[in-house]
């Protein structure tokens, strides 16, 4: 049986173009997924929004003084706070959409906004 199929130059171009679109779309929809999360910091004097994943230290003023919030690539935490019991510091870092840290005495509220699929807290069998 003789091979009848002979690819023509533009067939390969078309294939490569479709492959490029596929790779581009994959990178855009899965690679950029984590970057679409937002960190919202509410304090007495207003609300601040940051992209989750950027490295930054934010100081906000509350009734008791200054609260320092550390934004890192893998999470957000409160590093120092003038409040008496430091519960906000002990809450540690938050990483997923829906998680939050609150410091009631100094009226600071930090949370992560986003549409990433929520995962289970725990499973038991």
């Amino acid at each position, binding site marked *: 049986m003789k091979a*009848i*199929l*002979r*690819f*023509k*130059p*533009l*067939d*390969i*171009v*078309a*294939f490569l*173009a*479709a*492959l490029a*679109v*596929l790779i581009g*779309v*994959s990178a*855009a*929809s*899965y690679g950029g997924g984590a970057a679409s999360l937002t960190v919202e910091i509410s304090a007495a004097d207003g609300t601040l929004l940051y992209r989750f994943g950027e490295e930054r230290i934010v100081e906000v003023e509350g009734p008791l003084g200054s609260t320092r919030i550390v934004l890192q690539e893998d999470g957000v935490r409160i590093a120092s706070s003038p409040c008496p019991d430091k519960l906000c510091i002990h809450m540690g870092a938050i990483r997923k959409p829906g998680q939050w840290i609150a410091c009631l005495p100094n009226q600071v509220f930090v949370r992560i906004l986003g*549409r990433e699929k929520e995962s289970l807290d725990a499973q038991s069998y």
Partner: protein
Amino acid sequence: MRRAIDRFDRIAVLAALCLFLGAVEYMIPKPVPFLRLGLANLPVLLALGVLPLPHLLLLILLKVLGQALIQGALFSYAFLLSFCGSFASGLVMAAAHRLLGSHISLVGVSILGALASNTCQLLLAVCLVFGGAGWMIAPLLYGIGLASSTVLGLAAETFWSRSRWVRQLRTASG
């Protein structure tokens, strides 16, 4: 079968083939309604070299209606997606086939058609149905589109150059 197939018979025969292949495809399970292998596009690929553009568009309309009837999706958003996707791919394929002529075979034409159809469906899905989350299915859609359109293009190219039936279709009075 010796009788020459005339102009409108050709549309009818190709549309019937679309309907049949659409039914075959309906038996193959699929995870999302508009994720298709696109078997029913085989007659459209063959028609590119046979029918003039208005008749090609009529064939695509019949294909879309036939598929929707078989799947019971005539009045759903899936129909809208299928309709727009089929016409986008049909126009792109006709343009590629005519303009690029001898530099491209049905394989390349098929791949370009799938690309057009998927892009059109994706844009509609994002705008009308799923919102931004629609982009999450994009890699799957393009991946399956590329694979199935390549195979389908190979099949169409082989069929086109070998089949006696196609030869009769080509030489029929038009």
